[in-house]
């Protein structure tokens, strides 16, 4: 038995006797104070912002819970637009034209001032991408996987000749990224603070300035709330709520599911969707030194021209982070833009470094394909 399978088996054994964690549940083992912060953070997460409390003037949603609502921290049915420019091998995230996240709504005051219904699409963009809302369950655990682990899984030169490379993305300041569909953002804290600013235009102590509107300053009088529009305490509480969200316990496997679990590494899925990861140090015991089912290496992989859209950081248009397979059973659409209606379609759309696993999946008997899908639907 290989080491990852032993770790996964031990993990299954360890959680087997406990009540299963449902989507939206907090991690096990939180202290009373941490549980209190989880509950208070959920209130901020579920709150609805208005222009008077900081929303806008450009925005995609009125609160975190609008897009991550099934349940709080989970998926939503929203699809947003991103845009960047890729020229000469260099990615420009276009901050001078409003940044990579295109806000699709405006407040009444901005509409009255400029007649805009949404943020203007950046004229310099070379590509447009659609993005579904990701689940954020298990984010606190993913945040704590040491960079050294990610680098150990990277194989940019394909030294083992398995056709799977994998490389870390880098944020604008050079740090290794891991959050977002392009693994651009280094930490969960920054991902959350950035989401307040990019999705709701709610300024906060980490991002205290409003975004320009297509490179032009916001007209006077359309943004009544003083910056920063939420306090550090509110930001910290929201961060703790997301950080303490547990990955849902996988469902108990039947015969087919167990067969599918065996096929998962044989087909090659586990080359990128690493079944378990281990966290490092943390002041929170419930997060510290934990082995958890992650099914990701948090690295970028070339997924082929068929899926290519925008660049971001070092990620080329065809590069995507291996999506963690957390709460897969709750998904109604698959892949970064929701283009796949079924898991079979999602696998069949894997190209580039994923094409070997895809081909092996397609070569399976119908019963084995169904078994592999049954396993995935247990996650």
């Amino acid at each position, binding site marked *: 038995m290989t080491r990852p399978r032993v770790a996964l088996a031990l993990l299954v054994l360890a959680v087997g006797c406990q009540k299963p964690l449902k989507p939206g549940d907090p991690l096990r083992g939180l202290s009373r104070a941490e549980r209190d912060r989880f509950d208070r953070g959920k209130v901020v997460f579920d709150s609805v912002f208005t222009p008077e409390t900081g929303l806008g003037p450009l925005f995609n949603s009125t609160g975190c819970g609008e897009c991550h609502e099934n349940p709080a921290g989970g998926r939503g049915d929203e699809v947003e637009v991103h845009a960047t420019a890729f020229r000469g091998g*260099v*990615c*420009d*995230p276009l*901050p*001078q034209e409003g*940044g*990579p*996240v295109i806000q699709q709504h405006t407040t009444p005051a901005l509409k009255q001032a400029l007649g805009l219904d949404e943020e203007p699409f950046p004229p310099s963009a070379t590509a447009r991408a659609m993005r579904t809302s990701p689940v954020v369950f298990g984010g606190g655990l993913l945040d704590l996987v040491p960079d050294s682990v990610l680098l150990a899984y990277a194989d*940019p030169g394909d030294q083992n000749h398995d056709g799977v490379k994998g*490389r*870390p993305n*880098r944020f*604008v*300041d*050079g740090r*290794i990224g891991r*959050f*977002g569909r392009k693994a*651009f*953002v280094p930490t969960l804290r*920054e*991902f*959350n*603070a*950035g*989401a307040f*600013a*990019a999705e709701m235009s709610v300024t906060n102590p*980490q*991002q205290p*300035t409003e*975004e320009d509107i297509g490179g032009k300053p916001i007209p006077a009088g359309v943004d009544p709330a003083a910056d920063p529009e939420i306090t550090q305490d509110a930001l910290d509480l929201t961060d703790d709520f997301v950080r303490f969200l547990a990955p849902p316990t996988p469902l108990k496997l039947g015969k087919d599911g167990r067969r599918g679990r065996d096929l998962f590494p044989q087909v090659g899925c586990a080359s990128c969707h690493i079944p378990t990861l281990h966290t490092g140090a943390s002041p929170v015991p419930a997060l510290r030194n934990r082995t958890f089912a992650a099914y990701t290496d948090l690295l970028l992989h070339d997924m082929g021209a068929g899926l290519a859209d925008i660049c971001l950081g*070092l990620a080329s248009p065809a590069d995507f982070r291996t999506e963690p397979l957390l709460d897969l059973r709750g998904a109604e659409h698959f892949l970064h833009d929701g283009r796949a209606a079924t898991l079979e379609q999602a696998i069949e759309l894997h190209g580039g470094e994923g094409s070997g696993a895809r081909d092996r999946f397609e070569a399976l008997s119908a019963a084995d394909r169904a078994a592999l899908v049954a396993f995935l639907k247990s996650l």
Partner: protein
Amino acid sequence: MRRNVRTAALTAILLVPLVTSAPADWVALTSAQPAPSYTYQGTVSAINARAGTLDLITGVGMSLRVVPMTTAPTTRLVAAGAASRLADLKPGDVVRAECRRTAAGLVADRVEKLAVGAP
């Protein structure tokens, strides 16, 4: 050690009234102190070597901003531990810039090109 602490505390107590009742020219002297420094680490977005200007992309998560700055003849540019020139930088490079805020905006005192892990 305890004597030093006691001396420092006594000195502080004696100086407080002097500072709080400082004359106007003391305040002017204070405001003439060097401007506070700011350090930005980000990706070069645009360079105009002739004009001595540099735009950096910084930000938090997916919320990105452009930080424009100028260089002066005294600005030290460093790459791989050696002196460099603004013209040697290109969009996509990651740099750390130590700046001060002036009436004309941010002025870089030192710009260092960072070696970021290859893709």
